[in-house]
């Protein structure tokens, strides 16, 4: 019988790792992630979870242990935040290049300096080009469902790439919510045991990721790009199948909310997306035709979805919890790049960029309503008055 439990997103991530029958967990503590691996330690200790629990001396080693485990043909999991993720950076490339479908929970936390333990996306978005799929969650149920789905997506022979399942520290990580945990047999049926694309074998020795000359290196990179492109379809398929089996659909690549007739589409990720739904409902009551596109998959980036939305929307407003120094917010950049073909055909929607919630500053539905109204005003005038707005920046 499926059961409903009330717990924090970190504990829920641990429940998901258990439900996915993860066989190796590499653990190194860092705020706000620590309670993920603490909960898993409890499961392993009590015998509820049959996994090897490796206590490593750093996050670099945590990811190396996951690479080793998956190369030996078993399902691996780890979790980290901020500086821990940054320390893993090198090995993230090895995992993706070796085509190992590791799933990692990233509990988003702002990067220092200055030191911060509060959330923004500066940690995971700095890892954008490592070849990992990146999913962003808006609530605890989505954290559970996305971890299970991520294994299915990543282990698909057409993908075979690792994934980060991201959720904002404290906003979700330490906040308890009710979550439905399906029956283990049903999860087993949905997520069969891992079938590796290749596996280390003492009877058939070889080494992986050896030196590749310029004659062939590019082809291996091309295959990663192809796998990323393939994953778009699989993310949608898996979301649909998961919804049919367990009753939860989170939207696949992009959670579209009241977008059908929306003139202004707000674009954001994670919990700001959950908050924005309230704003959309309130604004609709006031007569504004506003919708929300909450990006769930940042990599692969769903450019096709934005091209489709641009058929009807007159304006997009990106609300980014991270800035690429020297340029702008990530979603703002990605939407503009995705809609470039419309720019050349001379029919672009207006696009504006807001930076909000950086370093964990609170972003409420009222903030998002104000951002939407400002954007609406610019849309009516047909002119973006300020290209990048740092929302609630102190004078």
């Amino acid at each position, binding site marked *: 019988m499926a059961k409903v439990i009330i717990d924090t997103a970190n504990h829920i991530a641990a429940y998901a790792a258990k439900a996915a029958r993860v066989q190796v967990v590499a653990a190194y503590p860092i705020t706000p992630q620590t309670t993920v691996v603490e909960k898993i330690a409890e499961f392993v200790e009590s015998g509820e979870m049959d996994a090897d629990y490796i206590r490593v001396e750093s996050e670099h080693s945590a990811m190396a242990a996951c690479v080793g485990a998956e190369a030996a*043909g078993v399902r691996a999991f780890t979790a980290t935040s901020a500086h821990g993720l940054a320390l893993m950076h090198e090995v993230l490339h090895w995992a993706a290049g070796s*085509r190992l479908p590791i799933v990692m929970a990233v509990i988003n936390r702002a990067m220092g300096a200055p030191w911060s333990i509060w959330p923004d996306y500066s940690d995971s978005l700095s890892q954008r080009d490592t070849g990992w799929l990146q999913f962003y969650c808006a609530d605890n149920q989505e954290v559970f469902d996305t971890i299970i789905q991520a294994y299915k997506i990543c282990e698909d022979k057409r993908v075979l790439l690792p994934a980060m399942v991201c959720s904002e520290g404290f906003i979700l990580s330490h906040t308890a919510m009710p979550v439905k945990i399906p029956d283990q047999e049903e999860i087993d049926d949905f997520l069969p045991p891992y079938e590796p694309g290749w*596996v280390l074998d003492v009877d*058939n020795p*070889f*080494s992986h990721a*050896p*030196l590749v000359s310029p004659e062939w290196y590019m082809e291996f990179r091309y295959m990663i790009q192809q796998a990323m492109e393939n994953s778009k379809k699989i993310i949608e398929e898996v979301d649909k199948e998961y919804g049919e089996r367990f009753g939860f659909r989170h939207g696949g690549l992009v959670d579209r909310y009241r977008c059908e007739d929306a003139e202004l589409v707000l674009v954001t990720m994670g919990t700001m997306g959950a908050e924005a739904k309230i704003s959309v409902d309130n604004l609709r009551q006031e007569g504004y035709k506003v919708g929300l596109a909450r990006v769930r998959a940042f990599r692969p980036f769903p450019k096709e979805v934005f091209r489709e939305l641009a058929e009807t929307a007159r304006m997009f407003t990106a609300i980014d919890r991270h800035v690429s120094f020297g340029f702008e917010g990530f979603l703002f950049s990605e939407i503009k790049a995705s809609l470039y073909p419309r720019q050349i055909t001379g029919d672009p929607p207006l696009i504006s960029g807001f930076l909000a919630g950086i370093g964990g500053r609170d972003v409420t539905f009222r903030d998002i309503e104000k951002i939407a109204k400002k954007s609406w005003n610019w849309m009516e005038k047909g002119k973006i008055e300020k290209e990048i707005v740092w929302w609630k920046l102190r004078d």
Partner: protein
Amino acid sequence: MVKLEVKIPQKREDLPITPLSVPMIGSMGKTGEWRTFKPVIDYSKCTRCLFCWIFCPEGCIERQEDDSPKIDYEYCKGCGICANECPTKAITMKREEED
């Protein structure tokens, strides 16, 4: 379990999803071409202790029937480790062009 088939790729479809290499002679080509100094064994001084055979990082010294070492010059990179390790100084590093 994936059984590895050893083949040299000709086109993209021949590639595995990630590069995997099996132990085989000369997967990076004839590395002997990289050599500047060539190790030459003076068999009259050689005691067949096989230090050179153990220490050669390229595994390109062959242990012959009578335990005497034989260098495979197609793959010897000329690092000089064998000459350095040889207790009887039976191996001399000679500049390639001197031969």
